[in-house]
């Protein structure tokens, strides 16, 4: 990877990935504004930009930039400042290896599925650092919860990815999507469920938002953040939705498989990711937050056994098809 690319190609790909990284989370964020509003019989933003408030998030960003960048006196300054970037950048790295079509991919790594898992695992460190460095008991509680949640949900997610990787015989996302067949929808259904739940927990979206829980521990690790740093955390959350939706699309829904998949493959990948992103928003609006013990029970007593059983099913399938 990378060795055969010219400098210009590297720059072009980086810029493209960065653009996608900045635009797609905004689209998801706007979708959340609107979907949430209509699920609550409201209209949502209607003014910014004219047509149905399409520029609301840009206006929000302008607002965040103007806000004061507060720094708690007792905070650990360096760690506090570093945390938002550490929460955001891993998602950028992960997005770079997700293919939209066999040819459209930021960087085609041979083990891109593992790259994605490693990146998201590192990303959670940002939340932990923020939680500890804020010198705030709510933040510390949030940090603790997010650490416990990460440890619990990392395992079933890795197992779910292992299942599809085993089925496809490769660790590359491009390879997995190429090998995908429609009947995998049924074969890998438990893994898809585990990955969806695990992904939801990994990016700390409701109903797995115990670490943030704005109504009880006032946004946990983000309590002390304001202005641009808080915006970075928000962007990381939406980038997380984008990443998880695209991964679901690539690994479990066959990415670019579909009519006219040659020229329009990338469109298929995105079209399949949109309903998944909608699912994340739908869950948030429909379900209450899980309690900490329910969260752990769900991970260890439902998701992990389910993922192990799925791994077994996949192994049997692979051996039988050989």
């Amino acid at each position, binding site marked *: 990877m990378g060795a055969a690319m010219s400098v210009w190609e590297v720059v072009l790909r980086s810029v493209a990935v960065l653009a996608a990284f900045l635009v797609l989370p905004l689209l998801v964020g706007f979708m959340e504004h609107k979907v949430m509003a209509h699920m609550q019989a*409201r*209209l949502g933003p209607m003014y910014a930009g004219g047509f149905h408030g399409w520029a609301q998030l840009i206006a929000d960003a302008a607002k965040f930039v103007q806000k004061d960048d507060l720094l708690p006196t007792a905070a650990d300054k360096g760690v506090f400042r570093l945390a938002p970037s550490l929460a955001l950048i891993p998602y950028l790295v992960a997005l770079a290896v997700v293919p939209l079509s066999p040819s459209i991919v930021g960087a085609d790594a041979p083990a891109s599925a593992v790259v994605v898992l490693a990146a998201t695992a590192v990303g959670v460190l940002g939340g932990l650092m923020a939680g500890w460095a804020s010198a705030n008991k709510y933040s510390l509680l949030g940090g603790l919860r997010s650490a416990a949640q990460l440890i619990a949900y990392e395992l079933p997610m890795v197992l779910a990815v292992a299942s599809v990787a085993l089925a496809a015989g490769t660790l590359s996302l491009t390879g997995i999507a190429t090998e995908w067949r429609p009947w995998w929808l049924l074969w890998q259904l438990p893994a898809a469920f585990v990955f969806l739940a695990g992904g939801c927990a990994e990016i700390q979206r409701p109903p797995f938002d115990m670490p943030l829980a704005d109504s009880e521990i006032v946004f946990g690790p983000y309590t002390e953040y304001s202005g641009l740093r808080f915006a970075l955390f928000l962007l990381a959350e939406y980038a997380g939705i984008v990443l998880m939706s695209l991964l679901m699309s690539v690994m479990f829904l066959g990415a670019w498989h579909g009519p006219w998949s040659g020229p329009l493959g990338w469109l298929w990948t995105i079209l399949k990711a949109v309903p998944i992103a909608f699912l994340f928003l739908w869950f948030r609006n429909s379900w209450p937050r899980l309690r900490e013990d329910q969260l752990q029970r769900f991970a260890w007593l439902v998701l992990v056994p389910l993922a192990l059983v799925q791994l077994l099913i996949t192994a049997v399938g692979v051996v039988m098809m050989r």
Partner: protein
Amino acid sequence: MSERGFLPGVFKGLGITMKTMARPAVTHEYPDARPDLPPRSRGVIALVEENCTSCMLCARECPDWCIYIEGHKETIPATTPGGRERQRNVLDRFAIDYALCMYCGICVEVCPFDALYWSPQFEYAEFDIQDLLHEKERLGQWVQTVPVPPALDERAPDAAEVVSANKPPRVPRPAAAAGDATGAVSAAGEAPVRRERPAGGDRPARAERPAPEAAAGAPTDATTDAATPATRDAEPAAPPEPPEPAVPAEPPVAPEEETS
């Protein structure tokens, strides 16, 4: 986590939000479209200055003490030579601090002279909280926005005013009837006719009512009025009428209630 009934509830929740999303939103796009407020909306309290007698009832009943009333006494010279001078209250200041007001409406309820009304007008936000103290000029402007009171429900009892106006005049007691037996008879004969009159139909409006002086010729009417000095309409029973016809007379307790 109760295992039973877990899954159905989860899907029920999803169904509810999806159903809500399919329905149109209930939002009123306020600055673009006027909200359709319910009748009797409590937007702001309007003051009909002419009706106010500075009796201070509203200011004293206000739980927040947000009504400020200032006034002074004016002496009205006697209208007839050798007559008694009269005093009346003049309202100098009537202000409501809407930063304090909690919109309970007690002032509107207690006002005995219909000087305070609820208006649905609500667009009087200010940038400074001190600007929410509105004087009587501003309160008076809101009178124009006071809606016509909603019609009574079908088969509802008549308003108290209508009922009292349609009451037959009380038959004077023999001792109070100035010793005229014919007057008593005539009043008794008139009563059934009045009772059959439709409510509010051809009854003269309050302003058009014959003045007590005009009715003084009939001794029965005079005694009836004298027997009930504080009628609901608060029309003066005593002969000297204040010069301004628009201002009702003082309530019986008014002179002692003078403000600073």
